[in-house]
């Protein structure tokens, strides 16, 4: 290896992706639509506390990607800094990952995904990472509507630095060192909605039945999809009086709708079709089916209704789960930039450097 090699490789779309399981010769009992086993989606061993909500979410990301048949190499993982932000190392080792700086994942993701918009972005962040130091980048990411899934593993506390309040901590909540929290929580779903986000959902780490289909739907959304997943910190924030604790979560979780993701390639759609369902067509042609529960009758295409739901719940210190708001029509950033099919990162050198003649012409104008 001594000379420059220009990569020039292009990524095959997931549907025709090659099947290269690491598992070698073993017979493939359970494989997904692209012929990979679930093991092909796993990551390194977690170093999080046993019982941490973040690990459940990693498992659910694995399930969603496996079930959707996403080619691991076509997905890139992003994160900031925190316990939550460590988790991309714990799922999908065959996907590239970028564990960036505290609060700055959105910018890194935007650069990478504009450089290669054929890839699927998946970001994992924490409430401190997103709501405190990172709120500016988060809002501007959402505003630009880059195509990526942005998961906030929201435990209402700084886990990795051992238990300080974050911007989503409950008012009045108490922690050992930090004392009593004096400030109202920031609602990251509401922030996302008013900044123009076209896919905003909230769920609970301990509820894989809701989380997995939400992740699947988010992965097919045209722009930025924000998932605020309450993910209790067993170590620093599991007092029963915190809204981010497991007990509180289970008891106060108001389900507003059921959601099932039905990928195009999958024919089981009918099975889940029901009378009160509302279908929303996503950008890539896949559909998500929203099952309304009677007591709330929430229409997730109604921004006002979504904001009202959130503000009411916020005032009551409760949270609503499910898909809160969806607008599948807004163009994403790569579309706005009119990027072609070939990602920028794969454009050959010959097209990156204009001709000598063009330079001579320019210079002629400089005399």
């Amino acid at each position, binding site marked *: *290896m001594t000379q*420059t*090699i*220009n*990569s*020039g*490789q292009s990524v095959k779309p997931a549907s025709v*992706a*090659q099947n*290269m399981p690491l598992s070698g010769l073993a017979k493939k009992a359970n494989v997904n639509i692209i012929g990979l086993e679930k093991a*092909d989606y796993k990551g*390194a061993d977690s170093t999080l506390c046993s019982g941490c909500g973040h690990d459940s979410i990693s498992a659910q990301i694995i399930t969603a990607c496996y079930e959707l048949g996403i080619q*691991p*190499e*076509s997905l890139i993982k992003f994160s900031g800094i925190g316990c939550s932000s460590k988790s*991309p*190392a714990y799922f999908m*080792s*065959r996907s*590239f*990952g*970028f*564990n*960036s*700086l505290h609060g*700055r994942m*959105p*910018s*890194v993701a*935007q*650069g*990478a*995904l*504009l*450089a*290669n918009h054929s*890839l699927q972005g998946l970001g994992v962040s924490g409430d401190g990472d997103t709501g405190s130091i990172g709120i*500016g*980048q988060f809002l*501007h990411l959402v505003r630009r509507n880059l195509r990526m899934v942005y998961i906030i593993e929201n435990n209402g506390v700084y886990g990795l630095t051992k238990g300080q309040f974050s911007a989503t901590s409950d008012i009045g909540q108490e922690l050992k060192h930090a004392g009593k929290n004096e400030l109202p929580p920031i609602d990251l779903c509401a922030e996302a909605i008013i900044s123009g986000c076209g896919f905003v959902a909230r769920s609970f780490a301990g509820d894989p039945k809701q989380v997995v289909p939400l992740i699947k739907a988010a992965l097919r959304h045209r722009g930025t999809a924000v998932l605020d997943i309450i993910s209790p910190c067993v170590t620093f924030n599991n007092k029963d009086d915190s809204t981010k604790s497991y007990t509180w979560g289970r008891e106060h979780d108001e389900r507003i709708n059921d959601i099932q993701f039905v990928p195009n390639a999958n024919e089981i759609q009918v099975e889940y079709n029901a009378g009160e369902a509302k279908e929303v067509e996503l950008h890539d042609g896949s559909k998500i089916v929203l099952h309304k529960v009677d007591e709330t009758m929430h229409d997730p295409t109604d921004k006002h209704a979504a904001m009202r739901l959130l503000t009411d719940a916020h005032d009551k210190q409760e949270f609503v789960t499910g898909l809160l708001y969806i607008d599948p029509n807004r163009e994403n950033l790569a579309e706005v*930039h*009119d*990027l072609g*099919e*070939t990602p*920028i*990162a*794969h*454009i050959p*050198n010959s*097209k*990156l*450097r*204009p001709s000598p003649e*063009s*330079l001579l012409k*320019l*210079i002629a104008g*400089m*005399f």
Partner: protein
Amino acid sequence: MISNSVTTADTQLTAAQRPSVVNDFSITAATKNGSGSQTANLALLRSLFKMGIPVSGKNMFPSNIQGRPTWYTIRTSGDGFIARRDVSEIMVALNPDTALEDHEKTAPGGAFFYEETIKMPLQRDDISYYPIPAKRIASELEKDPKLKTYSANMVYVGVLMWSLGIEEREMEAALMHHFKGKQKPVDSNMKVVRTSIEWAQANLTKTDPFRVERIDKTKGLIMIDGNTAGALGSIYGGVSFVAWYPITPATSVADGLTDYLPRLRIDPETKAPTYAVVQTEDELAALGMVLGAGWAGARAMTSTSGPGISLMAEFSGLGYFAELPAVIWDVQRMGPATGLPTRVSQGDIIKAYWLGHGDTKHVVLLPGDPFECFEMGWRALDLAERLQTPVFVLSDLDIGMNQWMCKPFEYPTEAMDRGKVLTAEQLTELKGFARYKDIDGDGIGWRTLPGTNHPLAAYFTRGSGHNERAQLSERSEDWEANMERLTRKFETARSLVPAPVIDSVEGAEIGFIGFGSTTPAIDEARTLLAHKGIKTSFLRVRALPLHQQVHDFIAAHKKIHVVEMNTDSQLASLLALHVPEFATRLVRTNNNSGLPISAAWLIKRIEGAK
């Protein structure tokens, strides 16, 4: 007028007694910003250039948008000197707020042109006076009231043309250039110009000795600003991703990119752009995006100035440690904090070199003029991908925003260097790879690009401690080995960055070391010293880390004047660390006035330091 207090001691004679001064003087036009004088000044500059006379133009403008004093100085020099001079023989006073001051600063023996409505005592007997009916002529010719102030500027252009002998056809050509070939504005401006010339012929008598004559000393040269040059160089370097945040004096780098990319870089087949440009929410995001894009395989850059450099500190450290290609243009302005946003400095050189906490160090390129801005534009992208690290290009307000006469840009002499990137095919052959392993002994590992379709392609990028396989590691051995490799890589960088430009003069005991926009002043000072019989050598640093040749140059001279525009003599410090054995030979020859240095200042300074 803002200026150093150095004056020429040229004359006790009256104006009339003196012989003609041809092609060798400075003109300063004092106006208000936002009044449209830029067209007039640039047209004057370019018409002189087109007459074959070496020129340079320096704009001294305030950090607001409209109504505050601004000065534009044009120097003509038959000998080809393009450094700023501290004095102006020809003063054009159009701004009543500064007219008194401008009057006072006019060089003895000079000429004072002034808007006729400005009331002031004109009692110096060592200069010539010429009223200019700028408002009057503009009012007569221009119907649109909004354009009256603007047109007034063309009146002084006409009067100066009369006085100096600037050719009409070159003025017309200059305006044609300015208005990008649109005949209509050229005509209406030329109308004002011609009327003014006629008025001057009829009403004024020339009593000063300054005039121009066509010569042939600009042939083959171009006139351009460094920011546009840098933008073009980057485009010819294949830049494919730009993220930036507005800031003076760097904004025009991005403007240049936004102007020229759509013209030069649309895929002829697909009609899609081969690039993306994002104006970000701030500088942290700008560098974050650039690093993300570079990681993903784009040729990525940003441009900023001091405050933005400070905000990029954390990301720069990440780029260094996670080994991500990125190009960062820092068009330097004066000062810590907000400082003087519209004044020049070279005060970020230590800052950029060591930007980021902990043990970071960066490759820094130092272009000396727009020609080099173009060259370093493409080279920086090559180096960033070759070295997998952020590369800073430190230009400054003078190079970046002023018009410089320079050699025409040279088409890149080398094929684009995309650095060490492994393809899926190579991975199959190699049965995998270790991202941070030093296979080739140059400290640079091989990387794969996100999306490479091979089960062994992926790795995890992070700013935390890691081993060769890019796995998180807190082991001392891994940390030390990695830092050692990074140090080795920095040595590789030393051999790859542009070497210094050296003019070693036989028998010279005095050497100059400088970089960037001070070069013309150093050149001129050396010529003047040579006339006095003082031999000097000159080394122009073009990059950090410093080359071995820098060491040898210092070793070969008794006394080294380190010329730079900052308070803390930052380059002198870096040189001292490079050559501890000769540290005492280095003389801090710094200037922090915010103005480009002049040869006169430099000579005075080093004579004071003798």
